[in-house]
């Protein structure tokens, strides 16, 4: 595995079918440590299926799936447990490792994660008392408690208003820069993909049809690559094709 040391995801020849219909056909996906890869495509093209296979929520029919051990998943609907307070929702992220962490370490990790998403003072609230953006922040905090090497996000900002979405994108970009985790982001939003990703994969008919790399060494005032317009145009074209 020495060749994969810097990889967080390695999918080779992955196929998946539902009811005889091929949803993914011979997909290869490799994500390096710290890299952000966006998956875009029309509804039903297999983006979410691919993400769920990476997360281990679905089995591939064929192919090889390898991921890093520390994976966290962010859902479009934030997926908070409605009867648990924010604090308890955040600590749920550590339940898998609860036996290996002291109570104090868990408390510190939860407090730190809530502080990182700027919700330290909302720990006692119920999800119903939060706005959509705040719920997504809690979901992100829950993911951060796992100290992820790989963060999988399934249209996490799709249900938010435009301004909140921009705030969340900035937050995610800042956390990624600070903590260095790799991200696989499923999105319908081409501008969001260009703003956040190092690499954008266009899925169509269960295959990766195009791959666009964004040079993030220089960014404009809004955190986009200088050639973002050209990238967006190319992605629009690829999606229409």
């Amino acid at each position, binding site marked *: *595995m*020495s060749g*994969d*040391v*810097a*990889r*967080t995801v*390695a999918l080779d020849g992955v196929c998946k079918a539902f009811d005889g219909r091929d949803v993914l056909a011979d997909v290869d996906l490799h994500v390096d*440590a*710290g890299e952000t890869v966006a998956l875009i495509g029309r509804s039903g093209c297999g983006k979410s299926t691919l993400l769920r*296979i*990476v*997360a*281990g*929520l679905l*089995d591939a029919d064929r192919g*090889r*799936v*390898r*991921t*890093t*051990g*520390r994976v*966290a*998943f962010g*859902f479009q*609907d934030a*997926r908070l*447990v409605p*009867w*648990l*307070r924010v604090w*308890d929702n955040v600590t*749920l*992220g550590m*339940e*898998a490792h*609860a036996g290996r962490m002291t109570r104090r370490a868990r408390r*510190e*990790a939860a407090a*730190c*994660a*809530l*502080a*990182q998403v*700027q*919700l*330290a*003072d909302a720990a006692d609230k119920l999800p119903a008392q939060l*706005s959509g953006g*705040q719920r997504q922040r809690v979901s992100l905090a*829950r993911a*951060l408690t*796992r*100290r992820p*090497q790989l963060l999988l996000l399934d249209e996490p900002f799709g249900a938010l208003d435009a301004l909140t979405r921009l705030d969340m994108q900035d937050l995610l970009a800042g956390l990624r820069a*600070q*903590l*260095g985790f*790799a991200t696989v982001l499923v999105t319908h939003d081409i501008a969001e993909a260009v703003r956040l990703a190092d690499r954008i994969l266009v899925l169509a008919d269960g295959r990766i049809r195009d791959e666009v790399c964004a040079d993030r060494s220089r960014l404009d005032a809004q955190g986009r690559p200088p050639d973002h317009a050209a990238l967006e145009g190319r992605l629009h074209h690829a999606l229409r094709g």
Partner: protein
Amino acid sequence: MSVPEQIGAVTSSALSSTSASSSSAASSATPASCAAPRWVRRTASIGAAWASTLALFALWALCTRSAPDTRALPSPGEVAAAFVALRDEGVLWPSVRVSVLRVLAGLAVGVALAVPAGVVSGASRIGGAIIDKPVHMLRAIPFPALAPLLIVMLGIGEAMKVTLIAVGAFALVYVNVRDGVRAIDPGLIELARAYRMPQHVVFTKILLRGVLPQFMTGLRFAITVSWIALVTCETVNSSVGIGYLLTRSQQFFRTDQMVLCIVLYAALGLLSEWIVGVLERLLRTRG
């Protein structure tokens, strides 16, 4: 669920503590204080809650103002006198105590069996197929029909009485827990799988807590049915219990004692409902 093969760990950067900028939009709006003080509103609320019950008692008193030999229904005063007489006889409080203990024991057994059965049935198709039909058959059998069979199997002692109550409680709690588990958002189960939560965490924090509203509904019905089952089982070889007092008063045509037993059942039912309400609030608070 399969866990994808793990590839070499990447050097992780530890989570660094950052100071909270506490910019969350914590709403601190204070509701405008109402004109009436809190104790006035509380008293008014309690008064409104008891108004219908008091109206029933008033109607009862009004209907029984004539001479005792001109009516079949005893007056509230006569029932109060029967209460004092039975208390002085030394049978009232032991009967109440024994009846309450029988209901508690039956409920405990019924609930203890119904919760796991409901969870298994709700969470697993095979479990549902195995458990559902026998439970539906059992709950369709009236208590007076079931009692003779239990007497043959368990005798006429406490075991038979507790079992009859447990059977009644079991079916109602089971059905509600089963439906509660089926109604849990599948997304939460997917969340548990995505975060590889241990089974006991999924069971306690998602399944059990998720079915709490339906469980409490089932428990309320189960308590009501337990009191009904108690009447049936206390007519069999009982020398103590509210059912025994009721049977005795019927034999001696003491309508005042009969109505007293009915009032006792009603009061204990009300008390049970209050206790369940407190329990529900406690469990919800604990999350």
